[in-house]
């Protein structure tokens, strides 16, 4: 799903995406999701385009982009590893496992490696709380994580 399957930035393509969604009620969120799905992030240059189409101020659109944790303003790493940081996962050792993953990847939570290879970030519950600790690796759901599973994930992310 991820692993860099994103399109390179194109203003034309962005305009097309905006046009495809602009007639939906409350179109801003579906547009931002579609932009991020295409390019991997929401570039600042797209904000005025959305604002103009939806007849909003730039500040309003900027406000929406920055309010939601999901929207990225920078491209993510080619691999995106999200580890659940919420309570049920903590109850079965997610804190220690996260520390192990940080160590293994040489990254702290919320960081992208300087070579753009991998992003490690927290997520707050995937509804997998009965097979915790859980996470999402390049869009794929993973449960019952342990250090072996983290080793495998790190190996996948080294490619």
């Amino acid at each position, binding site marked *: 799903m991820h692993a860099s399957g994103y399109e390179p930035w194109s203003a034309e393509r962005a305009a097309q995406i905006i046009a495809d969604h602009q007639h939906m*009620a*409350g*179109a*801003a*969120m*579906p547009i*931002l*999701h579609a932009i991020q799905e295409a390019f991997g992030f929401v570039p600042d240059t797209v904000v005025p385009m959305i604002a103009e189409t*939806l007849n909003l101020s730039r500040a*309003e659109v900027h*406000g*929406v982009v920055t*309010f*939601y*944790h*999901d*929207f990225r303003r920078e491209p993510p790493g080619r691999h995106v590893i999200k580890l659940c940081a*919420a*309570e*049920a*996962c*903590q*109850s*079965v050792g997610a*804190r220690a496992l996260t520390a192990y993953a940080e160590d293994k990847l040489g990254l702290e939570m919320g960081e992208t490696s300087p070579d753009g290879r991998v992003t490690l970030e927290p*997520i*707050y*519950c*995937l*509804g*997998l*709380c*009965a*097979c*915790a600790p*859980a996470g*999402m690796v390049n*869009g794929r*759901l*993973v*449960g*019952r994580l342990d250090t072996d599973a983290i080793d495998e994930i790190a190996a996948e992310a080294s490619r």
Partner: protein
Amino acid sequence: MNSIRIYVPNDATAIACGADRVARALSEALAARGIAADIVRNGSRGLFWLEPLVEVETPAGRVGYGPVKASDVPSLLESGLLEGQPHALCVGLVEEIPYLKKQTRLTFARCGIIDPLSLDDYKAHGGYRGLAKAAEIGPAATVEEVFQSGLRGRGGAGFPTGIKWRTVAATPADQKYIVCNADEGDSGTFADRLIMEADPFCLIEGMTIAGLAVGATKGYVYCRSEYPLSLDVMNKAIEIARRAGLLGDNVMGSGYAFDMEMRMGAGAYVCGEETALLESLEGKRGVVRAKPPLPAIKGLFQRPTVINNLISLATVPVILDKGGAFYRDFGMGRSRGTMPIQLAGNIRFGGLFETAFGISLGELVNEIGGGTASGRPVKAVQAGGPLGAYMPVSQFDTPFDYEAFAAKDALIGHGGIVVFDDTVDMAHMARFAMEFCAHESCGKCTPCRIGSTRGKETLDKIMAGERREANLAILTDLCQTMKLGSLCALGGFTPYPVMSALTHFPEDFGAAPKLPMAAE
């Protein structure tokens, strides 16, 4: 001869535990052996510790095997999986598993039994009887039936659903909306997810009935982005329902119009709060609105709106089908019907347990849930999500009931129970509650926005042993301010996990350890 039917679940939990690999291994192994069999992907029963739970149809009923890994497939086939023969992973007849047998499945009656995207399966198991009834008795009687059932909102606040519907029905407007709250942000909950992934037509039917009842023709499901599979299954189900005439201008030939669509959240917990959710649906920042006006009067795009939790809506079909009185007969006190309780975290038998209100917390955790997964003693459970209290074992006699929990400053919320063993540091958990509040605050009120950050800092000092007494007084005071000065329950209820941790486990906050009791 009937062909062999094998069921391999495909909800998010099963998939996260390797169900897709199991399904592939099975189909390859069967092909290699020249055996014709149908592999049905069947959502999930919600017995998550057994996932992937492979089932095979036998004359005696469905026999289960779990948890199955792809590498188990050859040995399963050799042992006679296809005839339901014994194997180390065999759990016998699935319907006889005590965890399932002890449940009262009303809302979740079909989950794990049917193919989620088969309308034929859905109808063969009672689907669309509720809508047929609603169309027959008409809007006013439908609202009344829901009122009579005693159903209270399953999203947390427990407000009577029938009263909410009456208000919307009685408010004239050019357009009304049904909004399903599928933001399910509480850690330890997955009931909404399971309906969407295992019985999506149940939600579609429930929303359609709501639309008919109050005169709304358009519905939105606001689903969190952390549930990509739910979004996918729901989108497919909506398309199927449209093609079958179950959504559209003339639903099921009833003369009523209703259509709906999915919308995706973007990782903001506060968007589970109903007015923040409406703002988000309108394409804005998810900032909480002051009430009044109530969403029932001025909701989405300023129109009268029913906003209900997904489970509230998915329970409506069975209420219409079997009658409000049937549903009301389950439960205790003012908590009527059943609740899907979600057993999660450090628990041996994690999963969904739908049962009538009134069961004790201790029975849920110890008898049904089998205690901790680690085998260590239970120290505390957090009930009702990140805004719910930590309850010690001494409160395990509390019956699962809105009022009984409230009397202990605790919360049923959306029905999640997260179990912790004795290795948990409750000061850490209290700090996490403040940190989470700071992370998710919508920023509208100062006690929540600033208070949560101060609370986290103060807890850091307490944990470091710095001016302990003085800082504990500051923390207590801060919690009081947040409780009284917050517009919504994010700021207003974060004090509950914090103060309950402090009250019940003072030794984790640097107090002298409690003297061991003379007798148990």
